[in-house]
């Protein structure tokens, strides 16, 4: 059974990093408007870990109890050593998953992955229309994705599709699910955009209305009833429209560990936005120290760090006060309640964001696509009008 850590002194932990996410590179041939990678990712494209360093990280995490391995990015296939990583993962007993846009997946590579023991491939799809796929990814990749889907199926892999949902495709949920069924998908994740990284910069352009989300969920439920167990459909509800925040990462340093392209070890994707935090790096003291003893991983474990209203809230075990990154980015206080919570004194910030997304003037602002050029601009302090509202670079 999972050990609960609440109320225990912060540095006493029995948690295990069951999920290891390896963000092996931030390089990516796509330029998705909703990408949750950090907007300053361009800083981390030069100092990627070597194959040997990744293999060591896999071994160390396995000893700590890691079981599920996600190989992600950026586009992981831009590295030519994914085959070696897969073989090592198999040897160590991981259940391994390649999370890809499909760009760069060739017959030769997928065969090597199969032989190496990769367990499954999660393919991102964007829409049923070529126009919207190509628009939102800022590339011409529609036909390619369909080919890759067929390749995955032909190699006997379960077909796991991930579709990020936003204003431009939410009206096509039914068609997207029909496409998934036609492709023979076993699992479909309809992931409403979460607003971090590039998607936070583009929030007013991407956020659908509450009515659109409710409608999409209704269609999803109907479709689920129709296909039954044959195709498992997950509908990830967007937290901005919920009363309570999500239990982010299932708790800080509870079950997830992320190793980024440059070796930083994080409890969640966007943790580097938090102030006064020094995240461990696999190049220094290793993963065991990072998980068990590093000040960063212990900082928000349990609930002793919480402030009012969370500290005394009867619901705190349900959500552990939500997401630290969202709290800091939007309110400037990393220890405050996630503003998504209707009990948060800062909840008006979320209400305003929802209102802003209905404002035609803001809607009409150009999308800032995830490109190296835009990342360099943001690092250089440009595009201020798009990031000034936030307390750190998204």
């Amino acid at each position, binding site marked *: 059974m999972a050990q609960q850590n609440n109320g225990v002194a912060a540095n006493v932990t029995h948690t*295990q990093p069951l999920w290891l996410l390896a963000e092996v590179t931030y390089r990516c041939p796509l330029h998705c408007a909703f990408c949750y990678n950090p907007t300053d990712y361009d800083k981390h494209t030069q100092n990627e870990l070597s194959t040997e360093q990744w293999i060591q990280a896999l071994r160390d995490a396995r000893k700590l109890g890691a*079981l599920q391995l996600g190989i992600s990015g950026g586009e992981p296939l831009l590295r030519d050593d994914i085959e070696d990583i897969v073989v090592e993962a198999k040897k160590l007993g991981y259940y391994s998953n390649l999370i890809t846009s499909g760009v760069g997946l060739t017959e030769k590579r997928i065969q090597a992955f199969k032989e190496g023991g990769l*367990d499954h491939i999660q393919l991102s799809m964007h829409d049923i229309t070529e126009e919207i796929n190509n628009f939102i990814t800022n590339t011409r990749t529609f036909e390619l994705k369909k080919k890759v889907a067929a390749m995955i199926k032909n190699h006997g892999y379960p077909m796991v599709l991930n579709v990020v949902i936003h204003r431009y495709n939410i009206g096509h949920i039914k068609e997207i699910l029909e496409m998934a069924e036609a492709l023979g998908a076993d*699992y479909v*994740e309809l992931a409403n955009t979460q607003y971090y990284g590039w998607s936070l910069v583009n929030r007013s352009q991407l956020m659908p209305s509450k009515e659109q989300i409710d409608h999409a969920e209704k269609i999803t439920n109907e479709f689920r009833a129709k296909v039954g167990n044959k195709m498992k459909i997950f509908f990830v509800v967007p937290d901005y429209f919920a009363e309570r925040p999500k239990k982010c990462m299932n708790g800080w340093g509870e079950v997830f560990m992320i190793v980024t392209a440059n070796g930083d070890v994080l409890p969640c994707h966007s943790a580097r936005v938090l102030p006064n935090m020094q995240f461990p790096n696999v190049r220094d003291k290793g993963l065991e120290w990072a998980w068990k003893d590093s000040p960063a991983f212990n900082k928000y474990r349990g609930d002793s760090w919480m402030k009012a209203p969370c500290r005394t809230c009867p619901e705190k075990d349900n959500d552990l006060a939500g997401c630290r990154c969202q709290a800091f980015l939007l309110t400037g206080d990393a220890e405050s309640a996630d503003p998504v919570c209707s009990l948060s004194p800062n909840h008006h910030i979320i209400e305003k964001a929802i209102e802003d997304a209905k404002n035609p003037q803001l809607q009409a602002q150009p999308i800032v696509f995830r490109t190296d050029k835009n990342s360099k601009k943001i690092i250089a302090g440009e595009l201020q009008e798009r990031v000034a509202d936030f307390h750190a670079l998204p």
Partner: protein
Amino acid sequence: MQNTIQHTDIYAIALHHRFQWEEAQQCYVILFPEGMVKLNGGAGEVLKLVDGQRSVGEVVAALQATFPDVPDIEKDILAMFDLALGKAWLRKLN
């Protein structure tokens, strides 16, 4: 749905699922896309014998031999098959 399981049925772990012993957690687990389940001791003992060869009856007999002191073990084993089938951890081979 107890009666859906027959003694002559032969099951294997479902496609795209993996069943293995985990040293770090000291339990058996089932791994599948996007998820995992840690099994309690009894469930692990049952699924360990589900190998695509033994029939349900043979699994029951083997466990009765291993745990002669557990009363009514057959009922627990069939309930476990039922649960595992309901969760789609198993596929039927015959």
